[in-house]
């Protein structure tokens, strides 16, 4: 049996998730034994189509990226959204929270019209996506677990238990009780609660769980001294994308 042909692609992103994917030594070499990497522009020059699994990093922020994403879809049996930018729009969607003209003018001044852009969207707003590997960046262990599932033809992990579950299992002191704004109660887990474990409140990078109780979460943040303006801002670091923004 021939080895599965996998590829990495990126759109608007920092390419950090692709780097995380090669940031482990032994596992990466083991992985190389099980798959053929046929496209990975950041790391290799070879480029072939007819792909079994494409990992797509980055969000879609302009018209011209749509045909390229569609081409990837047409040539791939399975498409996986890799990381926050691809899964939820990530930090790129912050620009959707302000009038687009203002954002463009802030960066490019009177030359803003030279830089075509539209509201940021996750890739599943453009093409059908078969699975998601969440996080900014992805978690290496979560990536490996998901790759095993994908190569067996199974679904990726949905991670509907919030970050708090793993945080409790690690016996971390709850940051909310220390007066820190933490998105853990409504954010998808699977990261080993890495932020709170290092004393930093969760910023919601893995996206919100299905049916999050955002109002209750906002009440908790308000109890910790944040204003409504602060809370709204904090909750949109990674979760600014709203489907209605691209209607």
């Amino acid at each position, binding site marked *: 049996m021939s080895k599965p042909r996998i590829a990495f692609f990126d759109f608007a992103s920092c390419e950090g998730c*692709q780097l995380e994917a090669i940031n482990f030594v032994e596992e990466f070499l083991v992985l190389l034994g099980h798959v053929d990497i046929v496209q990975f522009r950041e790391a290799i020059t070879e480029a072939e189509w007819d792909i079994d699994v494409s990992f797509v990093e980055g969000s879609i922020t302009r018209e011209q990226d749509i045909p390229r994403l569609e081409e990837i879809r047409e040539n791939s049996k399975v498409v996986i959204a890799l990381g926050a930018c691809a899964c939820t729009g990530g930090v790129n969607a912050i620009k959707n929270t302000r009038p687009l003209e203002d954002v463009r003018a802030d*960066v490019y001044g009177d030359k803003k019209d030279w830089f075509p852009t539209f509201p940021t969207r996750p890739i599943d707003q453009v093409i059908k996506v078969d699975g998601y590997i969440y996080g900014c960046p992805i978690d290496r262990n979560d990536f490996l677990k998901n790759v095993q599932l994908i190569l067996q033809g199974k679904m990726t992990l949905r991670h509907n238990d919030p970050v708090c579950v793993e945080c409790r299992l690690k016996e971390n002191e709850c940051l909310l009780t220390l007066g820190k704004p933490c998105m853990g109660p409504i954010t998808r887990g699977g990261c080993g609660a*890495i932020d709170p*474990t*290092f004393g930093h409140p969760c910023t919601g990078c893995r996206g919100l769980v299905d049916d999050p109780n955002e109002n209750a979460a906002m009440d908790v943040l308000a109890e910790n001294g944040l204003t409504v303006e602060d809370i709204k801002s904090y909750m949109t670091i990674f979760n600014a994308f709203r489907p209605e923004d691209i209607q």
Partner: protein
Amino acid sequence: MSKNIDIHVHHVTRVEGHGDVLLNVKDGRVEHVALNIVEAPRFFEGMLRGRAHYEVREIVSRICGICACGHALASVRASEAALGIEPSEQVVDLRKIVLAGENLSSHFLHIFFLVAPDLFGVKSVLPLATTHRDIVVRALKLKKLGNDVSDVIVGRHVHPITLDIKGFTVLPSVSALADVQKQIIEMIPEVVDTVDLIASVAGGIPDFTRETEYISLGPVSGSTEYPFYDGVIKSSEGITYYPAEYRKVTNEFIIPDSTAKHCKHLRDSYMVGALARFNNNSDLLHPEAKKAAEKLGMIAPVHNPYMITLAQLIETIHIMHDTVEIIDKIIRRGIKDEDYTYQPRAGTGSGAVEVPRGILFHHYTYDSKGRIEYADCVIPTTQNLENIDQDFRKLAPTILDKSEEEISLLLQMLVRAYDPCISCSTHQLNVRFK
């Protein structure tokens, strides 16, 4: 010679981000040659407007997956300058280690994965995994070492967790630092071997020189430190500035018929990055790094941009020895709990640090509630773009007798030598030529 050439390399590989190389030659004359940046714009400065001081670092580290810690450090330095905060000596020492880890990791990635395949005449590191497996394993181990050095302090190199304005959310233990120090010491011989290896294939590095202006941090007065985290802005033309004056250096400008912001100072263009640092500060390198420079035949000033990779390799040796010494100092002193709380206020400030690809500037203005009113980030690749184009213009006419394939490879190798970080270039995007 009348020759027509039309090269368009769509998305140069083995660089970070999306760029195209264009060369048009008509009747043996170069009509146009350029690196064309086609990365999707991300509008970071626009996204920062109105954001609270504690969110800023969180957002800007996402500018780049390779220099996430560098962006975070330039950010907290700019915020501290604006908010009137002075970090402790302990914090500064720990930050230097974070930056060291990132520079190591990025340099090894560039040397082994992005450049070495050209020197070995293969398309990527993948065939080397079969033919030179020991080198690939060494490459992965060294890259991981760089990550581990940062991870021990910030939790995760992409993207840092504990690094905040004024301090850290948690401090590393002395034993964790001692452990990572041991790893560094164990790996130094592997890098010394790499110097010999690269010296043996360095004959494959193209012979091309163009003198230009070199800009990097320079030592603050009285310091003998090869500056990455702290320093003044130094030009090889003999001028220095304070970080707050960075705009006198960067002078971002717009080219007719293109939409790219480029930079220039006293000459037509300037270079930032490992070779600029080496040319400006090589007398401050660690003695072992000086030995490596000698082996590689590098005597400052070096005017061949393809040698950037060698300057990076020399820097890795310096960084490893320097980091061992910083950790020694911290272990002697012990890790102390400190108060990292602060009050926001209105103010303006700039931060400059040396990240893998060169000097990086962040500049913010905060309102009285500690929200961003104005933000500006000038990225090393933005500063190098004009220099790459100027190199292209000098190089291209001299290589027209070669095959299109060879010409294309030489141009791509030049782009790769600069290790451009195109995703980082939050300013200049969509360079378009007619």
